[in-house]
């Protein structure tokens, strides 16, 4: 009892922090989204749910459904995120696998290297790419020397050879680059937890390596895969500055950009707030799916 009280006491500041900076802040977004604007187009939040004006929400929903103004952005965002998380997984899994099971005495170093990108702010790293991928940048020169740009160009993934000229693929690759560490770390933790003896047992029972991986390691790392996918997909869904820095073209704008445009200026701020709510709702569904799967997996392990 006393123990519980002490921990409750320690948790209180953190809970208070979350309450103020998440719950209250989100309620402000909700109040703006269900509010109105004054004659000068400044949002008036309606704090009392009984007063809520659902007009902006209805407009936001119409806008993101097929045929609506924002529908192309929604589709584009889904494609970009789908491609980016798939690539992140394909790139991240082997790295995490190596780091957790085969790095041996280099393990510590590999983990440090994985965390290293976090030492430099995300925006700085993106700015670096805007220089590398500029027409006369080292990056684009190298890619050109390796004929990668003309290869991608010939299959229609790159429009011309200008990486920063409003290219979807650049935005996707930048997203992968920016968020792949978030994929690797949970994968690493999950693979690291797998009991070596389980794999040995699989071998002893005659499973060839490929089969042991497919039937033992992969299923056991599923929580890590899911955690990684969620961890990278969530921030990508709200990301807008990657697109702004790497392209800034309307042809590659993502839902985060649309929301940012509404919130930043003009008379439609409540519409931006309503879209934020919609986005949160979609992300919440993914989150719930993740939590449910996780609980099921843990249940299976316990049983």
């Amino acid at each position, binding site marked *: 009892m006393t123990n519980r009280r002490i921990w409750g006491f320690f948790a209180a500041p953190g809970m208070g922090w979350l309450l103020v900076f998440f719950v209250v802040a989100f309620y402000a977004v909700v109040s703006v989204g269900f509010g109105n604007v004054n*004659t000068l187009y400044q949002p008036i939040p309606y704090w009392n749910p009984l007063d809520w004006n659902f007009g902006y929400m209805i407009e936001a929903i119409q806008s993101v459904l097929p045929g609506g103004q924002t529908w192309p952005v929604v589709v584009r965002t889904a494609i970009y995120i789908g491609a980016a998380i798939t690539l992140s997984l394909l790139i991240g899994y082997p790295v995490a696998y190596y780091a957790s099971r085969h790095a041996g005495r280099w393990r510590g170093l590999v983990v440090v290297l994985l965390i290293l990108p976090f030492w430099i702010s995300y925006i700085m790293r993106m700015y670096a790419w*805007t220089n590398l991928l500029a027409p006369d940048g080292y990056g684009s020169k190298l890619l050109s020397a390796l004929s990668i740009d003309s290869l991608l160009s010939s299959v229609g993934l790159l429009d011309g050879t*200008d990486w920063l*000229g409003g290219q979807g693929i650049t935005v996707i690759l930048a997203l992968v680059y920016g968020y792949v560490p978030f994929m690797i770390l949970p994968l690493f933790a999950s693979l690291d937890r797998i009991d070596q003896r389980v794999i040995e047992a699989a071998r002893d029972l005659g499973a060839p390596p490929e089969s042991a991986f497919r039937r033992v390691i992969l299923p056991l790392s599923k929580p890590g895969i899911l955690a990684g996918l969620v961890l990278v997909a969530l921030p990508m869904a709200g990301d807008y500055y990657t697109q702004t820095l790497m392209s800034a*073209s309307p*042809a590659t704008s993502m839902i985060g950009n*649309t929301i940012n445009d509404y919130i930043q200026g003009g008379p439609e701020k409540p519409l931006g707030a309503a879209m934020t709510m919609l986005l949160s709702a979609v992300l919440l569904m993914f989150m719930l799916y993740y939590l449910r799967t996780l609980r099921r997996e843990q249940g299976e392990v316990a049983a």
Partner: protein
Amino acid sequence: MNSNSEEPIDEAGVSRRSLFLRTGAAAIGTAALAGVAGCGDTTPVSESGGGSGGKGLLGDPTAGGPVDSAGIPLARRDYPVTLPRFQDPVSASAKPETGGVLKIYNYADYVNPDVLKAFGKQEGVEVKVTTFDNLDEAFSKLSTAGQEYDIIFSTPDQLSKLVGRKLLQPLNPDLIGNLQKNIWDEIQNPFYDVDSRYSVPYTVYTTGVGWRNDKVTIDPANLENGWDVMWDTTSQRGKVQLLDDKREALGMAMLHEGQPNINTESQAFVNSALAGLDTMDSKMRPKVQISAYETLPAGRITLAQLWSGDLLSGAINYMPKGTPASVMSYWYQSEGGPVFNDIITIAAASTKPVIAHRFLNYMMQPDVAYENFVGYTGYQQPQKSLNAAKLFDDGILPKGLSKAVVTQDAYATGNGFLTLTGEGEQIWDKAWSKFRAG
């Protein structure tokens, strides 16, 4: 209307959405009210505040002429507007406040820090600048209680809204003698602020096209329609900047189509401009930014819609080593293209009105304006004594860029993006967000 009203001005319910959304009797009430708001007759400021509109093509505003979202008549060159006063300006005999901080609210990098430092030293105050990215953001912050500044940099099209919102205080002409003494006659008594009740001019600029003449051989001046370069130079696809500003971007599309009224509220004209931008987007794949002052010198952008001052700022501050500023060229539509000015105002909440007046006066000193222009911002101020053309001839500014000079004649006949009615703003805004969705 309902219990939400904080101030009467807030509750006019401009949102058409509320028309069909508030249910039952409330909806009918809202509809009726919004109908009135549609005429913009929300606050009779023009009567109570003693402001007036002159006679012009738009008619008498008190008889239902177009007004902005704050209820103030739309100022046009042929329809000057006297802004209402809600308080008296500070007395000319008041003593300057001493010590403390003079708080300035401005775009980033839009005034020379050395100039500010010198002013602070001269007046014994600390000068602190807070920056905003765009005027919408500025407006939101200013409307929030607790954001108290002394000096606010802004644009004429925002002025009436700031005044209508009572965010500014009127100026005392006796404290800003440099306006009469040093500033071009054309802007001493501007149509958007008759008698300069609230504002003094800051910089003058044109909106045009800048390009890298080492990477692309075009010259809009040789074309019948110079704006065609922004649509037809497909070799530069992806290396093009379109200004991230709904008025400038859509306005350019209008000028490109030969539609000279860039303050139109006609849905058809705006739609047509949107279609023009969509065509441009598919052909040129422009970046929607305002950073060409940096990216054009760096060569990452080769063709840009930009402000003349940004081009000069790039030439002054951002040329990479070994690249002469002569690689950049500039063109603007000399007849009917955008030529306008920015303004400086004093916040209603200012606790240092006298120092603030002195700051306005200081910024209009010829030596200060020169130092600010050539030494930092690249934005020229409308000083009588400044012979901008000579700066180019003398090589103080890059010779090839002399077209970036704003002449008094160009200013006098130039076009500008002016205040729209609330409905008009929404029409432009809708089109712009549609374009931004790609």
